[in-house]
């Protein structure tokens, strides 16, 4: 039986984990709101949204980067879904000619790839530097997501699709009218995975985008936290003189996290379902 001691230990360990995750965020949030380095001045000298006000009003950089992140995430996720879904659907049909070859073709890319440099050469020679498409196309399809989708589609009873076909529906119509409505949990999960990937992706922006006005939030954040130049530029826009470099850094960080934390409780349900679906069907 579980002894009281071990039960306490378990609860303690788990609470420690929760605290280690929640506390840093709360600490940074508090710092950004009070505009002071909290440890030095423990007094809550008044909650002020000054830092955020400054970020959004005085500095066009944040707004531009935020818009870029949103654009990339929305456009990217749409493109991802438009290509992944038909691919997964066609792969879920056993009678597809060359199906095994195609699966192999895709799985190989999960294990072996050309490497950073050849990919870089390829993408630049397609002329994608400084284009939104450089952020979307190189990662257009994720093999992992396609496999999840395919497994789900394979589990849909064929009778449903057959009856639609008997009514004269084309492949696309069957997909649209029968399969997709049944697949909403998995679709939501995959869309979520792609969207989170886009919001968080930073490296290929670094590689392929040379114009600072096309930066996404992640790149902007990295610049602000790590390099003095971006911060100084922002500081010089601070005519009221109330900002410290740290408050700019922390506030930008929180703005970058904000959409994820906001949407997280709502979508948590879906992705747990989705991951379990994918895992169980393996």
């Amino acid at each position, binding site marked *: *039986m*579980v002894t009281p001691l*071990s*039960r306490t230990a*378990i609860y303690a360990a*788990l609470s420690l984990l*929760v605290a280690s*995750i*929640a506390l840093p965020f709360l*600490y*940074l949030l508090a710092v950004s709101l009070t505009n002071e380095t909290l*440890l030095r001045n423990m007094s809550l000298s008044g909650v002020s949204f000054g830092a955020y006000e400054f970020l959004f009003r005085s500095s066009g950089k944040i707004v531009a980067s935020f818009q870029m992140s949103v654009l990339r995430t929305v456009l990217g996720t749409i493109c991802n879904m*438009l*290509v992944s879904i038909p*691919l997964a659907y*066609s792969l879920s049909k056993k009678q597809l000619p060359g199906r095994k070859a195609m699966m192999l*073709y*895709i799985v190989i*890319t999960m*294990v*072996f*790839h*050309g*490497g*950073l*440099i*050849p*990919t*870089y*050469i*390829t993408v630049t*020679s397609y002329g994608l530097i400084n284009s939104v498409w450089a952020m979307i196309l*190189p990662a257009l*399809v994720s093999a992992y997501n396609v496999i999840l989708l395919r497994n789900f589609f394979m589990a849909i009873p064929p009778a449903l699709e057959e009856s639609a076909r008997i009514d004269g529906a084309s*492949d696309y119509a069957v*997909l649209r009218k029968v399969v997709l409505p049944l697949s909403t949990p998995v679709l939501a999960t995959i869309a979520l995975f792609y969207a*989170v990937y886009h919001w*968080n992706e930073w*490296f290929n922006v670094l*590689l392929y985008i040379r114009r600072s006005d096309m930066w996404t939030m*992640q*790149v902007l*954040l990295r610049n602000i*936290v*790590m390099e003095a130049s971006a911060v100084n530029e922002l500081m010089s826009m601070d005519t009221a003189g109330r900002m410290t470099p*740290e408050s700019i*850094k*922390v506030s930008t*960080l929180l703005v*970058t996290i904000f959409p*994820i*934390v906001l949407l*997280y409780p709502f979508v*948590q349900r879906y992705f*747990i379902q989705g*991951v*379990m679906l994918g*895992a*169980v069907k*393996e």
Partner: protein
Amino acid sequence: MALPGLVYYLLFHYVPMVGVVISFKDYSPIDGLAGIFTSPWVGLEHFEKFFGSYFFVRVFTNTIVISLLKLAFGFPAPIVLALLINEVKNRVFRRIVQTVSYLPHFISWVIVSSMIYLLASPSFGIAGSVLEWFGYREGFYALSSNDFFRGILVGSSIWKEIGWSSIIYLAAISGINPELYESAMIDGASRWKQVRHVTLPSITNVISVLFILNVGGLLDAGFEQIFLLYSPSVYATSDIIDTYVYREGLVTSNFSFATAVGMFKSVIAMALIVSANTLARRLEAENLW
């Protein structure tokens, strides 16, 4: 219908694979895509240069050591978490733990590294004050210390992924037939013995599949995380193959050389995953194919 997807793979995965040949050539960036075919052959020159270089030992060692550390600590951690969560009967507490622990997975490394950067900063962060209590001098900066850096890498990596990785194990655990537990209890097994003899054996399949996948990624060691956190002062303990490839290739434009290094890595990684899978098949555990 599958056509766009397949074309994508062709354009963005297989075409770059062809580009791997530049590791046997003397390629110059000005030549563009066609240059892959027109540059002169130099055989194994780049590979020899790499193996003979001062950096080879350092880079390779770091990659292996960091990966093994992450494997040793980071692989069991989600399993332990899943087991712990499974013991919690209070549904509210359980939900809280799960919700909170999954969150870091959705936060990008840029954000996490910025957080670490801010918290570790001597002037601003609380980490500095904590370390002072332990006797480190004022202004000590953990991120540029070779002693601390790998610990920070492994620790933050666990922090970020432990919740998300535990989902699969929890799902597997919840699928265990309750009768097995009952018969163990009838035999007088304590909870701990139940875990050892019922829970763990039942999830061995899941563990071995994930273990194979992890071993296959042994040479990866977390490029993005390291790239965001490292600095020249910690290259000695943290420069891995991928970061070296990045600097050599994109910063100093030694494209052919960097590709050779990258290819070396891909080939070994592939060998690793195939052998790990064969091993699992021999042991008759679940495998990938």
